[in-house]
């Protein structure tokens, strides 16, 4: 590592390497740790039980997101029956340990991977971990961020370090220009469906190329968010001027006096010319269609105007679970529920694009539609722009921030066997409720499908006239 070209990952790893082991593993300094009530509380309880102190509580930020009540005004602490114990535990543990907590009613509360960038907690070049698999989202800012289990969270909290093995490196170069109605979500779904949900196991992904350069920061967060659905250890994007502008002036960002010094280092965080990756994928996004999933893994996805594949193994449970046949078109499938939210697609730009589809239109009769902004900051900003009124006028419920219906935690649920069009990241069996049939897609596709009452191609939106108000009621 001392000579020759180095990758973005190599450079951040080198800056954090405390010790190298014979097996090429590394003991790395963990700069910042994120916790949420669902898994963080268990890690903190376990440390307390073992009588271990936190090495650096000032580097830890906690939030209540996974099972926070999402109903307007939050009449309860948790949406999960008995879930209050997790919220209460997190509160007491945070106080005892001296951890900053973004509590349920905090003005900046939100989904951990939405607030980490918003608060400047995630920054270029930092190592950041969280006992949550979607921590890879934060690599979009040029951080080395990855999801861990509870035991590793305990290790990071107690020692300020983690031991990681040597990972292979994969570069995914996105070329061309995204068409108007295709998004970062469609890119990552297309990649996973082409290469399989396990293709990137054992790898760190670096996303690069002109189509990545073109992406706003929030789109990059969506792209990196689903790296775990590709099997990757994590994903990263080299920080650029957009990144530097984005991170400046936030709660935990560098002080103005130190920003120049930070930028000097951040500008070096790019893969050197001549570096050879273990694997490289090139993908021209110019003709990419909006994607939608048909099965029970994110690799089960096709263009929205496509059909369920014919060559599905006989022993696959996916078609039975989803009540679909090989060769069946996706567009036109009747949906019961539409959900916009989650750490994948609940940021302001996501809500703006969905609202653009919904403006002046109404959700089809019989469709239950829910929008859950990713954080209170997103919710406030959206309300200042009047997006909430567009959602509610269209028939969407406008709820309080949190992970919400991305996963079922007991309590309120979609109906059993409901077909759900969802801007989330996982279409696993039972993920959104017992028997729930989840189709994941971009927020635009979710919004347009909600209006049509069927999985629909958002590229037809502009061609479809708005019906006058009196026709909408029946």
């Amino acid at each position: 590592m001392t000579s020759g070209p180095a990758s973005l990952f190599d450079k951040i790893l080198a800056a954090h390497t405390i010790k190298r082991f014979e097996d090429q593993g590394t003991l790395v300094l963990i700069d910042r740790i994120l916790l949420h009530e669902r898994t963080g509380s268990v890690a903190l309880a376990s440390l307390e039980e073992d009588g271990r102190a936190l090495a650096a509580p000032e580097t830890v930020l906690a939030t209540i997101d996974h099972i926070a009540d999402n109903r307007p005004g939050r009449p309860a602490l948790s949406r999960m029956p008995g879930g209050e114990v997790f919220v209460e535990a997190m509160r007491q543990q945070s106080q005892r340990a001296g951890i900053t907590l973004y509590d349920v009613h905090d003005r900046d509360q939100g989904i951990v991977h939405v607030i980490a960038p918003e608060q400047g907690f995630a920054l270029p070049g930092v190592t950041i971990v969280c006992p949550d698999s979607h921590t890879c989202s934060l690599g979009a800012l040029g951080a080395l961020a990855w999801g861990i289990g509870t035991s590793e969270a305990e290790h990071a909290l107690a020692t300020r370090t983690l031991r990681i093995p040597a990972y292979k490196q994969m570069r995914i170069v996105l070329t061309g220009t995204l068409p108007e109605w295709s998004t970062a979500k469609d890119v990552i779904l297309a990649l996973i469906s082409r290469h399989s949900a396990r293709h990137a196991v054992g790898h760190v992904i670096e996303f690069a190329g002109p189509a990545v350069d073109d992406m706003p920061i929030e789109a990059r967060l969506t792209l990196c968010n689903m790296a775990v659905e590709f099997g990757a250890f994590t994903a990263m994007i080299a920080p650029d001027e957009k990144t530097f502008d984005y991170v400046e002036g936030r709660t935990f960002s560098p002080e103005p006096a130190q920003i120049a010094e930070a930028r000097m280092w951040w500008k070096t965080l790019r893969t050197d010319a001549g570096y050879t990756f273990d694997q490289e994928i090139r993908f021209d996004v110019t003709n990419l269609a909006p994607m939608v999933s048909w099965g029970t893994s994110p690799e089960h996805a096709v263009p929205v105007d496509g059909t369920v594949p014919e060559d599905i193994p006989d022993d696959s449970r996916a078609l039975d679970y989803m009540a679909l046949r090989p060769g069946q078109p996706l567009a036109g499938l009747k949906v019961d529920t539409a959900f916009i939210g989650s750490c994948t697609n609940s940021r302001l730009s996501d809500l703006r694009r969905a609202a653009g589809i919904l403006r002046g239109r109404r959700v089809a009769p019989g469709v239950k539609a829910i929008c859950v902004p990713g954080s209170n900051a997103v919710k406030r900003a959206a309300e200042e722009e009047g997006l909430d009124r567009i959602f509610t006028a269209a028939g969407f419920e406008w709820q309080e921030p949190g992970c919400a219906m991305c996963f079922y935690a007991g309590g309120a649920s979609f109906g059993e066997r409901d077909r759900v069009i969802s801007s989330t990241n996982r279409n696993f069996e039972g993920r959104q409720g017992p028997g729930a049939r989840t189709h994941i897609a971009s927020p635009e596709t979710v919004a347009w499908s909600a209006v049509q009452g069927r999985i629909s191609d958002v590229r037809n939106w502009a061609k479809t006239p708005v019906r006058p108000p009196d026709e909408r009621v029946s």
Partner: protein
Amino acid sequence: MSEFRKHKGRAVVMAQDNISTDQIIPSREMKRVSKIGLGDGLFANLRYIDAAKGGRTPDPDFVLNQRDGESASVLVAGANFGCGSSREHAVWALKEFGFRVIAAESFGTIFFNNCAANGVLPVVLTPEEVSALMETVLAGSHVKADLEAQRLMAGDLDFSFTLPPAQREMLLKGLSAIDVTLADKPLIDLFVAQDQKLRGWLYKTERPSNG
């Protein structure tokens, strides 16, 4: 970390790819701020016909409810086992039920590390080896795993596997990863002290009280 050296036991087969931690332990089954009390919720949606309503009526079609499923301690599965959510509850539930060895074509990365941290041995085999193992297990053979020799045996089969050396040593000796790392505490402290000079901009960790 719990110790693992050798294990022999009854095996079950789940011949699917991409079995997620959501399937291994649904979120609603994680009811306490604790690592225990999860075995009952293992594979709940597959194992009980009335799981959605909190019921516990066994589904006779599910492998753990068949023959000697209740006493199984080895699980053989397809590719990408334990993908998805990082919830370590998946491993705690498997272990509480009695599983000590999981053999699969590949694993979700976080799940793999979680296994090793809890004395459950994750064994990666080739697709051909997994198929042969499934066949042998379905014919009634027990499975034997030896971590010292890094071999997995069943009937006439004898496969070698590897575990990252660090995890192997931890499991064999039953070491606590935290204690091992804390032995290097002076090194860590020195590194942090130097880093604070190099990257002073990072060490702003106070949230303004007006937040």
